[in-house]
């Protein structure tokens, strides 16, 4: 392993993109509107594309000759480093939208700032992903507004979604050791600065959506260090099934 901290940093983002992409893919064929079914597949596709870049870089750093798919298929939950937010169930459309919104407000600023990483590969990944994230946050933000400021039912559902997910929001911007070190060493992003921008964005959109920003600052955490909710295990048992059942094959 060339650089353990860099590896962890990369894996963290790879895993978050993958798991969120996987969750969104569950909607495929079941969306509330055909156009939004397509939109969710699209974002899922982007996220899977992003995670492949991250995993390929992770494999290079790790330098054990593993492929991206081996990294994905042969780790158990405790080795996954995604934030807990992305493993939360889809719930109703409001919940999916709000989960996405919480993630997108993070990732759009994350990639925007990561473009200045002194690690060229990270900067390159960021450059490509930032464009996508801009589209994502536009989509999820618009829907937050539409649902928040739509009917009474949709407003209530959005409130319930916020209630459900708010406590998973903070992990994204609360640096763990890996992130602190990554920032110090100049290749990672300054999460404090990011948090400010993101909080402003969240406030702006929720306000337009006639929704309130919750006051609670309590946040679940640990996903980035391998401690997850009970959902992840089930996600992985599907995600990894074929590779586990027939190891070592080409597909």
């Amino acid at each position, binding site marked *: 392993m060339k650089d353990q901290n860099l590896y962890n940093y990369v894996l963290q983002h790879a895993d978050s993109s993958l798991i969120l992409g996987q969750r969104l893919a569950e909607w495929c064929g079941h969306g509330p509107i055909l156009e939004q079914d397509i939109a969710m597949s699209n974002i899922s596709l982007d996220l899977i594309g992003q995670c492949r870049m991250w995993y*390929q*870089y992770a*494999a*290079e750093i790790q330098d054990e*000759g*593993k*492929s*991206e*798919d*081996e990294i994905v298929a042969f780790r158990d939950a405790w080795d996954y480093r995604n934030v807990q937010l992305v493993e939360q169930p889809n719930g109703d459309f409001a919940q999916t939208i709000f989960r996405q919104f919480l993630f997108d407000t993070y990732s759009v600023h994350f990639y925007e700032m990561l473009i200045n990483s002194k690690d060229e590969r990270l900067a390159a990944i960021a450059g490509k992903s930032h464009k996508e994230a801009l589209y994502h946050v536009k989509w999820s933000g618009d829907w937050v507004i539409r649902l928040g400021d739509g009917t009474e039912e949709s407003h209530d559902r959005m409130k319930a979604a916020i209630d459900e997910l708010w406590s998973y929001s903070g992990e994204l911007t609360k640096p763990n050791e890996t992130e602190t070190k990554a920032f110090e060493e100049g290749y990672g992003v300054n999460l404090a600065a990011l948090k400010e921008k993101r909080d402003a964005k969240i406030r702006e959109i929720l306000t337009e959506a006639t929704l309130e920003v919750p006051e609670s600052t309590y946040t679940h955490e640990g996903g980035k260090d391998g401690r997850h909710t009970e959902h992840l295990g089930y996600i992985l048992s599907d995600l990894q099934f074929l590779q586990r059942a027939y*190891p*070592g*094959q*080409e597909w």
Partner: protein
Amino acid sequence: MAKFHSLRVTEILRPTEESVEVTFDVPDDLREAFTFIQGQHLTLKKDINGEDIRRSYSICSCPIDEQLTVAIKKLDGGAFSTYANEELKVGDEVEVNPPHGHFYVPLDPENANSYVAFASGSGITPIISIIETTLRTEPESEFTLFYGNRRTSTIIFQERLEALKNRYMGRFSLYHVLSKERQESDLFNGRINEEKIQGYAGRFFDPESVDHYFTCGPEEMMLAVQSELKNLGVPEERIHLELFTSPVGKLGGRDKEITHEKAHAEITVVLDGNSMTFPYDSDKSILDVAFDNGADLPYACKGGVCSTCVCKLEEGEVEMDVNYALEPDELERGLVLSCQSYPKTDKVKLNFDV
């Protein structure tokens, strides 16, 4: 489960500009695992830019010689073949999976068989091993090979084939079919297709008395061989196929297009009664090039399915990549899809007013 072993490269030859012949050293403890039958192939594995690339290569050496050699033709943009042609060197270790495949028939010195093979390009690799092993093992058998290539300079194994011809004079017949170089008989100009095979049958081999046919090369050629032999009444179990398609090649995902070689020609298109002529010096489709030259030709899918770009070929020849749209009778009438067409002759004339 696929088990790979590290083998050391002991020799690299460069039979043509676009291919390498790679020989591996097989250590004693792997000798058994790496025993092979003529026609089988190896899977080589290499991490290229973080991607785990695995590609199959037929063994071109003879099992009798206990040597393990593959020939790898370079494809533009091809991941493994480019690596093998440009970076691989003697002494390197390559991850190799033991021989497998079913592209062979059992040999028997008692046999007095007649075999025919159709190969093109790198499709020769398993065939040459089959031919040599057969001729050496079955003294009473004879072999006929039709071998398609673009031009003489790209023929892999040219010398080895000549040597075989000399050694097994009377038992081995070899016919080169070239698509980009003119030969005397039209029978040997162009690609191996249904028509050509019809021409060969009866003339160079008797379809009825041939015991086994082998064919290896691009998908179109093989489908042509298969369908034409069937037309000639050959039972299926005598036709042996080996397909080379790469996992991301022609049949692959949407992000990979088929690549073409650059070519030169003069193109004339007729539309709404007007005709215009322009030079072609490109690797793009005729439709695209016409467009670049200001011709406003009809098209819609550019994928060979909608036939919006259909036109009549009035002069010269073209090669078509994909055709989902035109029926056989339409093809026979000379219709082609311009979005899928590439010039094969120096002059090509297409009429869109039909």
